[in-house]
């Protein structure tokens, strides 16, 4: 058991014929993920990944013919929000949108649409989700991961790999690692993921990697204090970031004196999260709190 995705997950890749879609779908397949379908409107009936994956015109058709239950989205930004809604309409359990640069109002529409369906959205602007040894549905490097019992949730990509790399080098495996995305509007937030990890019998502890801007970490911290039965190690990126400057992610900005790293770290500590100051200490801290 892992969270959200496993060996049984059947993945349809939206935008499979684009260069990124082809490259990463191949990587996912090589990792062992079941890539059962691709969608590129107008290319239905053809096949992708050297004839291994059938292409459909619509997600609905792909789901009907292949029983896909997860969608991985590599559609360019102007069309990505529509692709998310199409995935939700087709009834997949999970849609993972990697695309960076979706206009906020497009995303707001997609967010509202998805909310009315049974589909869970991860992202956009995220590396995706991986249950090591089971399934990789995203663009993360599979080989840095190790199957195990620690959950990782983060707003960023390479910083997640950094945390995972630290865990793996200490011999600590991961149950599931989820990149929730760096945009202001995302489908799944820290609190949602914490609930999943809390209920997962195969997760013993969670590393939560936040960053400056917004208040999602604060809200998750309060939830953790009241509900979480497992230890959480936390880190906030951007302790040295100046206010008013956007640090790469659209969401990573200290505005009006709100959303500073110091403020978030304080709230997280007060809520019982084991907060580390240095990004180099995330793995070691988890080792310590789990008594490994």
């Amino acid at each position, binding site marked *: 058991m892992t969270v959200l995705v496993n060996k049984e997950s059947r993945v349809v890749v939206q935008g499979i014929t684009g260069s*990124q879609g082809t490259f990463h779908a191949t990587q996912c397949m090589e990792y062992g993920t079941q890539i059962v379908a691709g969608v590129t409107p107008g290319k239905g009936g053809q096949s992708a990944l050297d004839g291994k994956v059938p292409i459909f015109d619509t997600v609905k058709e792909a789901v009907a013919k292949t029983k896909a239950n997860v969608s991985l989205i*590599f559609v360019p*930004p*102007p069309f990505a929000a529509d692709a998310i809604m199409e995935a939700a309409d087709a009834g997949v359990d999970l849609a993972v949108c*990697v*695309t*960076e*640069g*979706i*206009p*906020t*109002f497009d995303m*707001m*529409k997609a*967010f*509202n649409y998805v909310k009315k369906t049974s589909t869970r959205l991860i992202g956009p*602007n995220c*590396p995706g989700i991986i249950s090591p040894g089971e399934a990789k549905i995203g*663009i993360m*490097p599979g*080989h*840095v991961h190790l199957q195990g019992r620690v959950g990782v949730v*983060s707003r*960023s*990509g*390479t*910083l*997640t*790999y*950094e945390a995972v790399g630290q865990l793996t080098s200490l011999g600590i495996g991961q149950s599931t690692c989820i990149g929730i995305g*760096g945009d*202001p*509007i995302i489908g799944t937030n820290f609190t949602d993921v914490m609930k999943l990890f809390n209920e997962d019998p195969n997760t013993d502890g969670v590393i939560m990697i936040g*960053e*400056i801007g*917004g*208040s*999602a970490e604060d809200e998750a911290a309060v939830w953790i204090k009241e509900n979480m039965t497992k230890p959480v190690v936390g*880190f906030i*990126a*951007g*302790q*040295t*970031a*100046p206010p*008013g*400057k*956007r*640090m*790469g*992610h*659209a969401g*990573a900005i200290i505005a*009006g*004196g709100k959303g500073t790293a110091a403020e978030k770290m304080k709230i997280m500590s007060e809520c019982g999260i084991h907060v580390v*100051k*240095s*990004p*180099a*200490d995330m793995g070691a801290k988890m080792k310590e709190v789990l008594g490994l």
Partner: protein
Amino acid sequence: MLPRAEWGATKRRIPLKIHEYQAKQVLAEYGVPVPQSGVATTPEQAVKVAEEIGGELWVVKAQIHAGGRGKGGGVKLARSLDEVRQHAEAILGMMLVTHQTGPEGKEVLTVLVESGQNIDRELYFGMVIDRATSKPVVMASKEGGMEIEEVAASNPDAILKEYVDFEFGLTPFQARKLAFGLGLKGKEVGQAVKLFMGAYQAFVNSDASLLEVNPLMVSKEGQVIALDAKMNFDDNALYRQKKIEAMRDLTEEDAREIEASKYDLNFIKLDGNVGCMVNGAGLAMSTMDIIKLAGAEPANFLDVGGGATEERVEVAFKLILEDEAVQAVLINIFGGIVRCDMIARGVIEAAKKVGVEVPVVVRLEGTNAEEGLKLLEESGLGLIPVQGLAAAAERVAGVVKGDN
């Protein structure tokens, strides 16, 4: 996660801001009442604009993107055309210092000349995207003219908020709630509702991320008018907002940040002496943090994106080294799917071309990391390969502190 250039989309990553006069133009198109006005780049033009507006009272306002212009001496009241000229002469070309410009200030190249108003009350009106609810939130307050952050901190109840269901847009009843909440009466209510609804349309139709009208003025004659206006936009949507994009004022932006954005690099200048080159925004911020923890100060934030190709690394090197304060560089790349030997070659080629004269500490992680580190060591370029994030930060901090 994937750099936008690879999606074939716009490369710009700098949030777009526009001037007050431009924001007022955008709002006026949606029926938001603004004072009669015109822009000028010379004192003569300013007088001409004032003559065309007519009347006996004008305001000369510096047009820079930073807030707090009034306190810095960038907004002056004129009671004659002579005074319009004097104020325009004083403001045009001045280095206006406000709490948002930094101590060096910002040169004023344009002024807005407006008809003076008979102010009865100054209110606040604005809208942003609320991340917690994923909805636009429209805000209003009786405490106009002040920094809204100060009001939010000292008296949060003084800010009225209406969360908008994006599917239905701002509804008239919500606009009325705000208007009555502001204590407006009689004909003022209808005017305010019309203004709020128009401003919301402007906000959505132009893909704005922030709109502020501060102050929203009620005149002694009972007119509700946007006396100031500020708008920021979603840079992800600029591809469909050509008119807004044309309002971009490059003199307001850092030249290096503009150069970086052309190559899909995200660069922000800071005050320290350790240049940083990192792939990924989160890791880039964390690298700055760990440099600070090691006792040194980062000179910049720089995200070279997932690819970290030779061309990008080269441009990144140039940007970092243009800063004379930089005494050492830390390159921190978590290779992931990209092979580290390829990245190492990119770094070596770029270093050769640019001619790097400061110590460069390189930390590579991911596929073929050892091979990459070996290539760096053998390059003879004085690149210092280090394993591990903490070790890399300590090494580069040691270099700038002279420990070596």
